[in-house]
């Protein structure tokens, strides 16, 4: 095999390899999402964040409008402080409610934003006052069992009479 044919094939190989890497970065990974556009940060305190993780999506009306940037523990209020990056093209009123929701029954948790009616919009560094914590399955079950037990007591006595 002569020299130029070898060069040609090596060229094809290198281009194909780089194309493979680009395919992995662009089509398989999420390079194009949210890293380039400008963001502003807001914080929210939650009594319980459940299984929320950094980089979890922030959705409003089901549309992804940002990502969770950081989760920390507040030593004074014993609450979780969740820092959220929101895209600049999405503006929310100051009295927006943040909830921790779950996609599907066993799905991943995300932050849901519900816009309020205030005329003033959120700025970088603001804090969301209205939050709703994650639903913890154990608490839900124990609440349900307590209610059942409270309901069941008077009825259980009646047949015994």
């Amino acid at each position, binding site marked *: 095999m002569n*020299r130029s044919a*070898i*060069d040609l*094939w*090596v060229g*094809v*190989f*290198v281009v*194909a*390899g*780089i*194309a*493979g*890497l680009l*395919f*992995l*970065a662009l*089509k*398989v*990974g*999420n*390079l194009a*999402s949210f890293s380039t556009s400008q963001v502003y940060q807001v914080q929210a305190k939650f009594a319980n964040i459940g299984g929320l*993780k*950094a*980089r979890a*999506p922030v959705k409003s009306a089901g549309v992804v409008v940002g990502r969770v940037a950081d*989760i920390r523990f507040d030593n004074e209020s014993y609450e979780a402080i969740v820092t959220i990056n929101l895209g600049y093209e999405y503006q929310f009123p100051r009295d927006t409610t943040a909830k921790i929701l779950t996609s599907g029954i066993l799905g991943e948790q995300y932050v849901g934003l519900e816009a309020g009616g205030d005329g003033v919009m959120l700025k970088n560094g603001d804090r969301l006052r209205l939050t709703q914590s994650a639903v913890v399955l154990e608490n839900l079950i124990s609440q349900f069992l307590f209610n059942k037990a409270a309901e069941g007591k008077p009825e259980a006595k009646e047949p015994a009479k």
Partner: protein
Amino acid sequence: MRIADLSARLERLGSAVTAHVWRLGFASRFLFYLVMHSGTALRRFRLTIAEIYFAGVLSLIIILVSGLFVGMVLALQGYETLQRFGASESLGVLVALSLVRELGPVVAGLLFASRAGSAITAEIGLMKATEQLSAMEMMAVDPIARVVAPRFWGGVLSMPLLAALFSAMGIFGGYIVGVQLIGVDAGAFWSQMQAAVDLRNDILNGVIKSVVFGIAVTWIAVFEGYDAPPTAEGVSRATTRTVVTSSLAILALDFILTALMFTGGTHQ
């Protein structure tokens, strides 16, 4: 009698350990010398291009076909398990993550070791057995700079590209079986994959793995070839040792790298 027997055994163990450590040190010095004398290979890049052709381009067929089939089998097996939990839409995530993180670099590395590593060892070993390397030295040509370094850099440069092509082909195979044959929704296949695969944590770490495997395999291959006893039997043994040692090295390094990359970074 007993004590003499025991001491003879200990002596054998000791000499085996010493021989291995000595060999490892020799291999490390060889690598150091090789990297220091790579000037020729990089300045006369045509030498390295020819080796990229032998190590990379000629390995393309086996890498692409294996990648395609590994991806197709992953999709079939993954679908079988995922659909029991009603999560068949996550098939893309399963195929992409297992390929990009593990199977791409590891299987491509194993194939590369047996396809290109063994060839490098046999070629250098035979050059040594037929005294071509000594002839070069007689002509004041450094055989490590002229023969070994281009092969080393050719392998090191080829391996990450081959691993990336393996992963890309595997995801394509998973797409063919999962979406076209089984009928998983194409939108969910790609969008869940894109949501779950992280550029830095998954793809970059996979590329780092393939670079490390490329260095390890090619290093072992050129060293075994250069160190082979100059006989037919010696070259054949060296070739076998290349494949065995580099396969074990890939698996051991993969465990270490995975432990460093994917468990250290989960708690943020």
